């Protein structure tokens, strides 16, 4: 832990020093009456390519080209550093041209999706560990189906004809709950209101049940807990799995836009003045 704190301090200090150096370098360059946009743009384009190569590193896991964790640390560091270069490149202004504005938006979405992904990768593991059984994401539907089947058999067990307090309760309040992932937003917001509501309904039903039915309802309650935990696991695992599908395609579009922008600038703009 002490080592981690030390590493973080080193990274923050290096980031601050490099940012200052970039700002100072940009200022000094501007004194020479050169266009700083060319310099910052070149740095930015190279940085984007380096940042995108992280995805390639993940594919080349068998090659001895450094640990992926070291690459990720560098990816985050460089990604944050590009924001400084980007601001200098923009001269702190929102571009007025349509294409430049789209490029601007594209960069922002890539940058912020990266930051959000970074925060999610720090936060979600802890939340996944805090509740429910650890289940492989691809197996969650199977587990959900098993729970649903168990509940259906319990409902049938309570009353073979399919009529009665528990079957009615199941049809009214539980069928949709067990059919698929539910209450996803509530899980994300850490709300347990849906569970309280269900448990209140179960409590309200109990006076109308005989002892056998009460035992069945108790077992159904346990399955509700299991299913809810599974939903919790499902939504957070889904977020962390789906997040790259936002960040990576946006990166590819950013590369295309940036390359086009560079070609256009090189073709039509002067490098001095």
């Amino acid at each position: 832990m002490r080592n981690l704190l030390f590493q973080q301090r080193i990274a923050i200090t290096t980031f601050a020093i490099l940012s200052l150096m970039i700002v100072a370098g940009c200022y000094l360059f501007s004194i020479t009456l050169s266009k700083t946009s060319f310099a910052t743009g070149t740095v930015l384009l190279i940085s984007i390519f380096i940042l995108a190569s992280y995805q390639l590193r993940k594919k080349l896991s068998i090659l001895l080209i450094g640990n992926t964790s070291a690459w990720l640390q560098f990816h985050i560091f460089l990604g944050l550093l590009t924001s400084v270069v980007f601001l200098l490149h923009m001269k702190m202004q929102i571009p007025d041209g349509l294409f430049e504005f789209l490029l601007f938006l594209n960069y922002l979405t890539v940058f912020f999706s990266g930051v959000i992904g970074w925060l999610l990768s720090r936060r979600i593991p802890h939340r996944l560990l805090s509740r429910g059984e650890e289940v492989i994401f691809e197996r969650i539907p199977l587990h959900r189906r098993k729970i649903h089947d168990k509940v259906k058999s319990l409902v049938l067990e309570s009353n073979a004809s399919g009529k009665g307090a528990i079957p009615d309760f199941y049809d009214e309040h539980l069928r949709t709950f067990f059919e698929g992932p539910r209450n996803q937003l509530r899980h994300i917001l850490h709300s347990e209101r849906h569970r309280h509501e269900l448990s209140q309904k179960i409590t309200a039903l109990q006076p109308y049940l005989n002892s056998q039915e009460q035992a069945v309802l108790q077992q159904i309650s346990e399955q509700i807990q299991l299913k809810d935990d599974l939903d919790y696991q499902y939504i957070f695992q889904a977020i962390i799995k789906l997040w790259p599908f936002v960040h990576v395609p946006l990166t590819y579009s950013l590369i295309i836009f940036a390359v086009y922008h560079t070609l256009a600038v090189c073709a039509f703009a002067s490098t001095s003045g």
Partner: protein
Amino acid sequence: MTDEMVESLLKAPPFSKIDPSGFKRSLPLRDILKNDVRIVGFDEGDIIVRRGDWGNSAFFILSGNMRVELEKKQTSLPDEILGRRTSRVKTFWESLTQLWNNNSEPEVREIASVSSSKATFHSRNTHGGTRIYLQEVSAVLDKYRTARLEPGQWFGEVAALGRTSRVATVFSEGVSQLLEIRWQGIRDILRHDKEGSLKQYIEDVFRERALSAFLRTDPLFQACQPELMQRIVEQVEFHTFGNYDSHKPFKQLLEDQNQKTDGREPVIIREGDYPSGIVMIRSGLARISQRHYNGRRTIGYLSPGQIFGLDEIQAEVKSLTPVACQTQLSAIGHLNAVLVPTTLVEEILAQNSSSKSSGSQKTKKSIRSTGSQSVKLKDDILLSQLVDRHFVQGTSLMVIDLDRCTRCDDCVRACATTHDNNPRFIRHGPILNQYMIPNSCLHCVDPICMIECPTGAIFRDLAQGDIIINEQTCIGCAQCASNCPFDAIRMVDIRDAKGALIVDSQTHAPLTQATKCDLCIDQRGGPACERACPHDALFRVDMHDATKVEGAFAS
């Protein structure tokens, strides 16, 4: 074995020297010989045991001569001619081409590699089985240093009883006849032989050949004078604890997690007793526990080569009054240990302190380092779980810190890419605190999967210590998979490049092979799973390295 053969064996040494009256009526010596012993014939060059294999039987030479290789490392018999897979590390280009050369079908094997047609070793069908043999024995004798074993001598008994690997390769020099006795047979004979001649023989062999070198692995004995070492070697006692095949009940214990394992473990030194010497573990693992309210709390464990009881003797030397053990030592599974008597330990300490006062920095360090050798953790509940579930067996235990793991499965993908698109572990397993121990090979210090492998296909790589499976010699018997208490070995149907199942040419039954994690032995940079984890969540721990264990489970 026929009754006539048993009769003739009982009339000749070594069995004629054993008193049959000491044996139980239900298990007489005659029955042990009948059930656990067989006479095996060997032709010139036949390999009987290979260095590094796990042995479960010992051999007694009836006729003919054997040759045992003497040198290790560069001058030892090469792995290829012993029928062992040579671990060749892939080049950068070979690794890169895996990206597009990997098969899309699962578990594809080259038929040639399964049928051994391209094998560099020689095998033949003889004496009712397939044997690997050395083709030109005279050339081997010229090239490599060997010693002759003659009729009346035993070999392989130390490895069979100690559950350790064979230390040398033995092959037949000319036609020979051996008596092969299973470890169960040796165990029963040792247990009931009143005169103890066989036991004495085995102990003497170990004393003569290996004890001094074994003791010197510990810093305490490294500075011992030759005369003192000689006396230690003569006076050391050998002890065995636990059931040899304890992995079978352990499998049941794993299924029933409510049962406590420590209650059944044989106690080596009880808490509160005065130690009669220091215990040094030869093979197996030992638990150190302490009384805690009405139960016992695990506070550490010992691995082979580690010592227990030295602190108490050191305290006794200082205070000049006997010091009782503050902790209890018990055997986890099967354990072999040596006991060095207190008087001799006191002599070593006296000798070391005199050399310390004369300024030997090395001795100073060695005494200090022997104080507390056991692996300890601040979180004793986690430690207890690791010991109870036998994860402490692992020399390369895969651990995933779930507080860091994003469940991205990059580790599984990297494993699959490395192994021709076949992942060799499942990211699923028991969770202890925030640590998941996935379903992957632990590369155990006591690899019970290697016991009973009929072809020696599963073996420990001598260079790196990993347990690996040789696809060329694996016959798919599933013995290793059923022995593994962690279910880390999977039997798979093997296929050709087109995806068709490879079948036995005679029975037409699909051929299966055992698969498991091989720590990416053929890749540069070690396990791909570990390198592929972007969050440093997956790591491997040698559970016998106290510093690494403490560091890994620190948070």
